[in-house]
């Protein structure tokens, strides 16, 4: 992009000031400065719609679900199951039975690695990519240690592009599962997951997509994608923490053994033998995150009302502007220049350590993530220990980028 964007051009038809008014925390100050929150990739802030929905659920519709024969329990059950329907519709899943509520993406991936993993044998192959979050690496290593599967890693290039041809070369009839991120939490790379799924299916492999970053940046239609599993988490989608979603194809889920045993997932228990309910109940042992589900549904409704396409366009404008502005800072290196990327910028600033950057710019009210981003193999790939990362949410503005740039210049000045 050669010409700077005018503020009025950003996300035309997108009223970012109206969005900002919906987020109470954005009206607060941090260290005497307006909060410039650029860490939505770690966890996004919550709109009043989510806070209010959870407040209302606790105040007027709370009891345990799926149990009591009384009105409040029915209300709580309706809230919880309606949340499942909201997510079903949002992902365009074929049935609400395909939506399992988990704790987060980590627990969703562990569920698949454990449960679907029982179908895998020594020598079977699982393919991941070089830019996975630890949550999509370690569960497969644990499976490898249990069963002797072979873990293969699809490479990326120096700009962070996913190399589809190299990925295809790793696939064979031995490939039983492909577990790939939709959007890299460090580089911002958007992986062409539909093509990944098509190629994997051609070899008879199932595919799990880690959508932690993906679901907030792109419309996800699991039927169109033909994904076997798609996982995302509430707190990155402007909803509460403590609740995540695992979408899985119904036949697949019902063939899989339970992950955790307990109440709510059983059909009939005797000391000799227990039979299990079908999905989703099979995978939701114990009292679930009831009010969090209500909050997640409110977040999905809010996000959908604003529109993921508009939000993505707004974030693209911010990304483009920020890429240009940050590139003007002498000594700043951006990691991740994929042709197709989401609103995430990782960078280093000469020899100023990202943690020092994080502390110093916080004094100006700017929140960014600093560290290895739970992606140490990716850090090793670029021979760095850590980066600072600015990630954009639906409420960020051009002014936020300008404040970030000024704060970085200040940080650089301290290190002279």
């Amino acid at each position, binding site marked *: 992009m050669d010409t700077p964007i005018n503020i009025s051009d950003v996300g035309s038809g997108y009223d970012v000031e109206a969005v900002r008014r919906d987020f109470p925390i954005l009206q607060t100050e941090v*260290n*005497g400065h307006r909060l410039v929150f650029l860490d939505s990739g770690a966890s996004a802030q919550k709109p009043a719609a989510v806070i209010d929905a959870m407040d209302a659920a606790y105040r007027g519709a709370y009891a345990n679900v799926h149990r009591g024969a009384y009105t409040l329990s029915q209300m709580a059950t309706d809230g919880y199951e309606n949340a499942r329907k909201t997510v079903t519709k949002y992902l365009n899943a074929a049935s609400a039975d395909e939506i399992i509520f988990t704790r987060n993406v980590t627990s969703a991936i562990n569920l698949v690695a454990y449960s679907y993993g029982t179908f895998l044998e020594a020598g079977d192959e699982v393919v991941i990519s070089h830019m996975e979050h630890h949550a999509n690496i370690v569960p497969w290593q644990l499976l490898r240690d249990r069963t002797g599967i072979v873990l293969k890693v699809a490479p990326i290039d120096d700009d962070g592009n996913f190399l589809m041809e190299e990925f295809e070369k790793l696939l064979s009839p031995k490939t039983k599962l492909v577990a790939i991120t939709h959007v890299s939490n460090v580089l911002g790379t958007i992986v062409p997951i539909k093509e990944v799924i098509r190629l994997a299916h051609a070899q008879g492999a199932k595919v799990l997509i880690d959508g932690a970053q993906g679901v907030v940046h792109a419309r996800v239609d699991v039927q169109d994608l033909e994904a076997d599993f798609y996982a995302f988490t509430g707190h990155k989608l402007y909803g509460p923490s403590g609740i995540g979603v695992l979408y899985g194809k119904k036949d697949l889920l019902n063939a899989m053994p339970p992950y955790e045993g307990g109440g709510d997932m059983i059909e009939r228990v005797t000391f000799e033998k227990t039979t299990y309910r079908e999905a989703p109940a099979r995978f939701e042992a114990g009292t679930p995150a009831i009010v969090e589900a209500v909050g997640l549904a409110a977040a999905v409704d809010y996000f959908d009302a604003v529109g993921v396409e508009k939000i993505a366009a707004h974030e693209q404008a911010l990304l483009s502007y920020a890429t240009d502005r940050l590139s003007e800072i002498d000594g700043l290196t951006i990691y991740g220049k994929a042709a197709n990327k989401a609103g995430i910028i990782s960078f280093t600033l000469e*020899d*100023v*350590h*990202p*943690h*020092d950057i994080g*502390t*110093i710019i916080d*004094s100006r009210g700017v929140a960014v993530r*600093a*560290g*290895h981003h739970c992606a*140490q193999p990716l*850090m090793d790939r670029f021979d760095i*220990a*850590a980066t600072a990362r600015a990630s954009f949410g639906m409420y960020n503005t051009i002014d936020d980028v300008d404040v970030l740039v000024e704060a970085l210049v200040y940080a650089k000045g*301290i*290190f*002279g």
Partner: protein
Amino acid sequence: MEDHIRELYQEVILDHGKNPRNFRHPEDSTCEAHGNNPLCGDRLTVYAKVGDDDTIQDAAFEGRGCAISVASASMMTDIVKGKSIAQVGRLFDQFHKLCTGEVEDIDYPEFEDEIDKLRVMSGVRQFPMRVKCATLAWHTINAAVQGDQEATTE
């Protein structure tokens, strides 16, 4: 707030961070340990040469980290030389309390010069998230002289 930043990133700390002292791997070290801050991935290796009288004759380190952790390691390796393991243990304990704000000042009258140097790091008190950066090297040398291979700030 920017006063706190200036206090944390004093010239002395910036200097030690940029030009760390004792940044080497001594061939005659008698013990070493790896220090790891799992939250941020910072890693240090601290080497020490301990004499028969339990005195630290030489200390050095290698690794990478933020300005605070590198500066602290640099100063620490200077300070511990010539001290006994027990004295280093007491200095570490006092320094840790200084960084967490548990004590206002270090109480160890024999080592006033060393304590002057350590006081420079006390700006970290205003930044609880960074205390582990300031204490990583101290955890690590303590582990090394106690015969442990690994130290962690967790």
